[in-house]
């Protein structure tokens, strides 16, 4: 069985020549959840943007055995559901139901099937009561749930979540962590939140200057790089 994600020697430069990724190797196994840790600007978000072809660098990316090429993009975007950091940008339709049905309709589902898939996804994230509400009337936590529903409605195999707890208060963060723990998909979690990484992930990789500096069990990586509010980096990480 092929790995869900296999990335080899991925390199990427921004238009102004700034190197963002300098040879990243990464893999994700079925059922696995991996945390991507690292400082702001270390390349985490740029890296995940490559997983579904939103950015395109040098090297090779395979998703569920499919090489990342233009012809495979629709199939790959069906397999990888990406939840963006700012839900405001992800919720662009006039109502919650229409927003969640946006992906299923793009996949060619009939209106009826798309509406059913959207309702089921909203049920999963406990937002079924909000189907006719306008996205801008929702709280930050509700927006995040609806953004996740928009991805779940497309029935992806992998969830990529970019800083999912940003803008959420502690109860919202807790509720989101519980929701994510219930979802069966493999996950790639970009986060600064060590507690969230510990609760959801079995493995962590640490990005530094566009490279993966280390990987291993979450606790080990968090301690080694001092990636927790209360801890200092160990001597080996300095």
């Amino acid at each position, binding site marked *: 069985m092929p790995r869900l994600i296999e990335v080899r020697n991925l390199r990427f430069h921004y238009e102004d020549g700034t190197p963002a990724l300098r040879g990243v190797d990464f893999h994700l196994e079925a059922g696995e959840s991996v945390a991507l840790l690292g400082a702001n600007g270390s390349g985490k978000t740029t890296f995940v943007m490559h997983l579904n072809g*939103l950015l395109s660098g040098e090297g090779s990316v395979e998703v569920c055995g499919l090489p990342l090429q233009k012809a495979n993009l629709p199939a790959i975007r069906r397999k*990888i559901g*990406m939840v963006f950091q700012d839900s405001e940008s*992800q919720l*662009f339709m006039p*109502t919650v139901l*229409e927003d969640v049905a946006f992906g299923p309709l793009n996949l060619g589902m009939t209106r009826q099937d*798309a509406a059913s898939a959207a309702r089921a996804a909203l049920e999963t994230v406990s937002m079924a009561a909000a189907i006719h509400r306008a996205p801008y009337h929702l709280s930050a936590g509700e927006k995040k749930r609806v953004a996740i529903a928009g991805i779940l409605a*497309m029935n992806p195999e992998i969830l990529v979540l970019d800083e999912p707890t940003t803008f959420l208060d502690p109860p919202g963060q807790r509720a989101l962590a519980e929701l994510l723990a219930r979802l069966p998909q493999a996950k790639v979690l970009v986060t600064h939140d060590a507690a969230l990484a510990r609760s959801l992930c079995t493995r962590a990789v640490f990005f530094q200057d566009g490279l993966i500096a280390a990987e291993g069990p979450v606790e080990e990586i968090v301690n080694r790089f001092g990636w927790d509010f209360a801890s200092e980096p160990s001597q080996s990480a300095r």
Partner: protein
Amino acid sequence: MHHVVLERWSRGASPLHRRDPRSKFAALLVFLVVLATAHRALPLLAAAFLLLLAATLLWARVPLAGALRRAALVLPFTLLAGAVCWLGGDPARALSVVLKSYLSALAVLTVVSTTPLPLLLRGLELVGAPRFLLMVAQFLYRYLFVISEEAQHMRSAAASRGFARRSGGFRAAAGALAVLFARSYARAAEIHRAMLARAFPGRFHTLGALRFRAADAAFLALAALAPALIRAAIERLA
């Protein structure tokens, strides 16, 4: 904000809210033509049309005072045009410009405040409005709120650093406008990425399917006849 209020009004459940938007567009068109081509007994006709629109708004359970106030947004422009006519020695034309523009705005507001945006856009698409323009309108409507909120944050940030509208006010405003533009551009790029991540093929599919029913035809017949009959009756009396 006006569009948030209109959004709330448009989600009502009156018989007028349930009519197919195409029947409302056609009725609006007839109303505007009957109004625009009227010349005799204009003050009386305007009063009758005002009553007709007020009755329609009350039937649709749209707050009358709020609607009358919002339609008055056109007055600063048309009063100016009216003043020019008046000073040019044509008071009848001045009165005509002001009355007709106000009633036209109120009629458009009646349609907009009784038709949820997705149905309004879908209806416009079905009567041949360019799809691209409708897409722009949809995004503008959705993100007006977000952009205005960003502008508000920038204003607060400036005020908390002691900015006051004295010397250099225009320069600061121009700078703020440039930043707002750059942020809007970045937001647009992010929305586009979020759309691509959900398999957007370049063409919008929507959930709403419209069906023109007998009740819509009956409404259209009534709504088209009413202004024409009122005008004929008043012109005969005059």
